[in-house]
């Protein structure tokens, strides 16, 4: 399938319509397999069953970071090639990225309560995820402020790219900041080396999350394309309607 065909929104809609049931099926299956494997994983001798939060926490952390990269690539397409689907992809990705980031934060906080005795510490890694979350919210706010999609797309593209430049710097400076003032109360995140009995279910869950993300993203893109069509139709109708004027 030549990629040019995919660039056409109608082709995209037709193709994804056929793909969607399979994707949903694959996602459900992957989650079923993953959850069974998780159930089989041993409880931690210290943490007990709470360790199972990790199987949600870690994949969503990976996706939280991955989706910004995806958005950066897509917005590059918006700016450079003015690709018709690129800004749709970027726009659809932002709320999904924010949701996974929120999931990572929430599971982390829920996990932190039994582990550290508090929901939140200003550890470097936690903090940079929080900043990432704020930046997702900023991009979403920007998308929401403008009705004209192509204008919003270009503005959001610049913000996303500047953010992509900045995220490593933020991550690095937050690391610097925290190692400097490190209070004794913070428990280090890096636990003992991961045992295969945990690693395998983790990877399975990661695959399931990835499939979930792809499914959600394609569905959101379809939605966005349809929404834009409705909008265009409304505008055209507004223009064409026989008013008493003409």
């Amino acid at each position, binding site marked *: 399938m030549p990629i040019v065909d995919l660039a056409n929104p109608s082709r995209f809609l037709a193709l994804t319509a056929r793909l969607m049931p399979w994707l949903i099926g694959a996602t459900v299956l992957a989650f079923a397999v993953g959850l069974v494997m998780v159930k089989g994983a041993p409880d931690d001798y210290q943490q007990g069953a709470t360790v199972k939060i990790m199987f949600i926490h870690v994949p969503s952390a990976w996706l939280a970071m991955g989706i910004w990269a995806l958005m950066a690539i897509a917005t590059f397409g918006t700016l450079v090639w003015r690709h018709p689907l690129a800004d749709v992809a970027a726009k659809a990705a932002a709320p999904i990225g924010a949701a996974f980031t929120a999931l990572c934060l929430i599971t982390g906080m829920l996990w932190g309560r039994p582990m550290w005795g508090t929901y939140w510490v200003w550890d470097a890694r936690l903090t940079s995820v929080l900043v990432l979350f704020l930046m997702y919210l900023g991009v979403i706010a920007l998308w929401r402020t403008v*009705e004209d999609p192509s204008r919003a797309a270009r503005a959001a593209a610049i913000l996303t790219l500047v953010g992509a430049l900045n995220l490593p710097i933020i991550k690095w400076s937050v690391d610097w900041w925290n190692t400097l003032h490190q209070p004794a109360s913070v428990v280090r995140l890096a636990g003992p080396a991961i045992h295969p009995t945990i690693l395998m279910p983790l990877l399975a869950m990661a695959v399931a999350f990835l499939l979930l993300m792809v499914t959600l993203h394609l569905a959101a893109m379809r939605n966005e394309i349809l929404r834009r069509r409705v909008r265009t139709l*409304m*505008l055209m109708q*507004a*223009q064409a*309607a*026989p*008013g*008493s*004027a*003409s």
Partner: protein
Amino acid sequence: MAQVQLEGSGLTCVRGGREVFSGLNFAVGGGEALLVTGRNGAGKSSLLRMVAGLVRIAAGRMGLTGGDPERTIPEQAHYLGHQDALKPSLTVAENLEFWSRYLGGAGGAMPALAAVGLDSLAELPAAYLSAGQRRRLSVARLVAVRRPIWLLDEPTAALDRQAQERLSLLMREHLASGGLIVAATHGPVGLDNARELRLGAAA
């Protein structure tokens, strides 16, 4: 509605510390239109804003007879200025409906929109309107809410020829129903027997 009569006597206007005009007298009755003319900066807009209660009367007095005695002059007047009082993010219909409800109009917005030929754009955000379409939307306000006094500042600006004609039709209807019009203008507005008030001086 009783026969209304708007009168100003000995009016003085001071803006930004400078006297714009002084000792101005005028009177307009129901069914009459008064065209305020004069050079740029002569004080036409200032006079209209004075009637609308938006510029302080430095000296002299303004009175209305025959109107609703419970309400002030501004409350019985429509003011169509250079600004359109539109919110870009609301649709055309929402904008008009708000003003119609806020100013105490009765009917819905659609008939007024139709009267200015904007009914087909009712659902469009006002941000998308062209200069003339914005102006028409302002004019629709005059139709949506009945008020005896119309204060129009260069009402034909930005309107195309058909819209200008439609506006003068609306003005004639307003006059015929006993209303009065004070309009600042540099050109003809399509009213035959309007009186003229010429303000002197200024560049």
